[in-house]
């Protein structure tokens, strides 16, 4: 990456190799260099408040406005080029209260606001304005957070969402235990019991993540949403790449790190995939975006925490490391569901359909996978798995175990086989599909219909 030579300090600039120039030369004092790199008129914000500038010095030389429009540009580009949101959509933003999902919420709101303004101004009103809802998964019961602290976080969330209108956004506060939708109030105990069954600390963390994803799907399907927006940023995805590798999930990894993930009933999209955590934090700081966090003590020795400190260390040493990691993993072949299914509806405006065509072309060589792990919903490597799923003589839980990926078997399923039956009872029933249909549960078959054209003929070994 080449940048303005006179003041470049970024370590990935090839001009650094030039021996005649002293390395780490301080920016020259002339006025032009002290101005924003892009608009050449305002002062870069980092010179006044170097604390927020961080290591990414390219960005630190933007003025606040240019920095913001640059970041929003990345978001907008990934939304548009991957057809993440179309006018007919109803978008559910997953909001944890943290900076990344806060920025995602802010950007989605802005986009909606602009579309609304155009809509109000236009005469024919042909293009609808997409709807936005917000989901907060309340995990306070899983972390045993005191009631008053949890209440305060919920209050904050309500305040943040209500401050983002118009247009009005519906807020869904979903206590995690509600995945047990049987109406009984023993959900909390069941949840705790389920979490306790995962003996491995990393497994427990991951189990919570899986439950969160399932909860988001539940909110989305119950309330008629057509997209789920996650605030996963480059840094988070880079950590996921390494953790998945370390857990032996190399096969399913490409499914999780694309812009779109339509293996679910409601496709999940990652519009902040190209934004760094640092940039997000900076934006929150610049615009004083309120964030909140459920207080919980992180267990120190899990694979996840170890990896994130490792990645943070590498990022500190080289500010483009996280992007490199994501770019490398991005070269792994994605799955057929890693795109937004095409809309067949004739009501969809031509421009939208054309855009979708363009974005879907990219995934020509993608794999088609038929079976998913019932715990993490990761695609399961067909070659590594025996076909014992077909054997109906086995007890139900053996079939369940067989259909799980190796990683979940190790870190989430109880190691004692006698506890397996109990684990299955505790696993949220809404999501347990019969073992025979496991490989192609209902929603998957509907998904399959939509992607029929890209399935290979030799994938029909399912009799």
């Amino acid at each position, binding site marked *: 990456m080449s940048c303005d030579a006179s003041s470049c300090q970024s370590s990935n600039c090839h001009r650094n190799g030039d021996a005649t120039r002293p390395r780490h030369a301080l920016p020259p004092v002339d006025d032009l260099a002290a101005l924003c790199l892009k608009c050449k008129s305002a002062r870069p914000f980092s010179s006044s408040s170097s604390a927020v500038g961080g290591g990414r010095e390219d960005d630190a030389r933007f003025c606040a406005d240019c920095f913001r429009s640059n970041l929003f540009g990345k978001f907008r580009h990934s939304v548009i080029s991957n057809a993440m949101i179309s006018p007919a959509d109803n978008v559910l933003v997953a909001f944890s209260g943290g900076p990344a999902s806060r920025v995602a919420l802010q950007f989605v709101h802005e986009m909606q606001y602009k579309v609304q303004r155009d809509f109000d101004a236009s005469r024919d009103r042909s293009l609808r304005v997409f709807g936005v809802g917000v989901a907060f998964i309340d995990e306070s019961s899983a972390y045993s957070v005191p009631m008053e602290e949890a209440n305060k976080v919920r209050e904050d969330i309500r305040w943040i969402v209500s401050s983002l209108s118009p247009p009005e956004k519906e807020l869904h506060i979903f206590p995690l235990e509600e995945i047990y939708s049987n109406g009984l109030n023993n959900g909390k105990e069941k949840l705790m019991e389920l979490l306790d069954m995962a003996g491995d600390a990393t497994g427990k963390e991951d189990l919570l993540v899986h439950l969160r994803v399932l909860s988001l799907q539940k909110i989305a399907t119950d309330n008629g949403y057509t997209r789920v927006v996650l605030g996963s940023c480059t840094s988070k995805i880079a950590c996921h790449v390494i953790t998945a590798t370390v857990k032996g999930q190399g096969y399913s990894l490409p499914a999780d790190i694309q812009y779109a993930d339509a293996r679910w009933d409601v496709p999940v999209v990652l519009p902040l995939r190209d934004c760094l955590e640092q940039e997000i934090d900076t934006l929150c700081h610049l615009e004083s975006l309120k964030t909140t966090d459920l207080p919980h003590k992180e267990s120190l020795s899990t694979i996840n925490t170890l990896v994130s400190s490792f990645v943070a260390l590498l990022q500190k040493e080289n500010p483009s490391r996280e992007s490199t990691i994501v770019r*490398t993993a991005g070269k792994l072949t994605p799955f057929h569901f890693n795109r937004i299914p095409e809309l067949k509806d004739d009501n969809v405006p031509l421009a939208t359909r054309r855009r979708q065509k363009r974005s879907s072309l990219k995934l020509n060589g993608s794999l088609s996978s038929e079976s998913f792990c019932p715990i993490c919903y990761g695609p399961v490597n067909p070659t590594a798995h025996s076909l014992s799923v077909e054997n109906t003589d086995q007890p139900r839980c053996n079939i369940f175990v067989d259909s799980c990926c190796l990683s979940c078997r190790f870190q989430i399923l109880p190691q004692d086989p006698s506890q397996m039956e109990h684990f299955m009872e505790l696993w949220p029933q809404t999501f347990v599909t019969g073992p025979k249909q496991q490989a192609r549960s209902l929603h998957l078959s509907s998904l399959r219909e939509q992607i029929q054209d890209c399935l290979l003929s030799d994938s029909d070994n399912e009799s």
Partner: protein
Amino acid sequence: MAEADGKAQKDAGRGGGRLCCICQARKPALKRPKTLQQICRECFYAVFEAEIHEVIVENRLFKPGERIAIGASGGKDSTVLAYVLSELNQRHNYGLDLFLLSVDEGITGYRDDSLETVKRNEMQYGLPLKIVSYKDLYGWTMDEIVKMIGMKNNCTFCGVFRRQALDRGAAMLKVDKLATGHNADDIAETVLLNILRGDIARLSRCTSITTGEDGPIPRCKPFKYTYEKEIVIYPLTPISFYYYFSTECIYSPNAYRGFAREFIKDLERIRPRAILDIIRSGENFRISTSTRMPEQGTCERCGYISSQKWCKACVLLEGLNKGLPKLGIGRTRGPNAEPKQDQMPNGSRSMASKQCGTLDF
């Protein structure tokens, strides 16, 4: 496979109490690094050797009657490999002719010491030893090269030259295959480093147990699933082992590569199977075939395999002989290489964390 066993054995180990959880007869002497099961000495050797045998058989690493060179640096991995291979060869009638092959880089105070160990091994196991030296092949020792180019970038020379030297030595011995002592930790580390570095081409092939099958002499890694810690434990046997406790190569300042090594060790502490999991991930990565691999040709000067007109070794050598040692350094480096990575041998080395003295792919 091995993991499933490991898990089952681990379960058994929990209830096992005082006895070795494999034989259930003797007192456990150690906690096996790979599975954390408490086992006795005898069972450790048995299971250690059995696993390597299984890997060799399952992956069909060798055919009867083949001549195999073992890349021997005198370090722990290659010493244990030489011993285990000669043991298994006799025990299971592989029908192999085994040789030791060493490269003498010409590093005073480092390689000359470790070569002494290799010579001892030659006597002890009765395996014929061939030493190829940089001085004979290229006319330069590493000492001389370092004198010329300084402490920086010299790993590039060493790495490129060693790779070719091993192939040439193997050709002189007329062997069919070269076995190297890369262990599971090394491979896991390579997988991670290739992700961190963005090297998708190497990522796709760094986990294969046999490489270079289209080249002149294929290489294989019988220790692909063997933990480094177990290789360290193994020689604590009645059989006397001599190996060189390789400190660091005196010309290789330890920088970036320590990161990944440290990380793997931390992971192993939390979850021993993480190393195997990383290797499994590496094997299961699906890399689209559209990633173009460089075409293989031969060097116009020396006839060695090369994707360019001249092979890397000839380019480097030309630079040395003309007094332009910078020639060839940095050309293989991407435009985004960071200054920190300067100390990392680029291009030909995929095992960035291997000690300079150990053998490479």
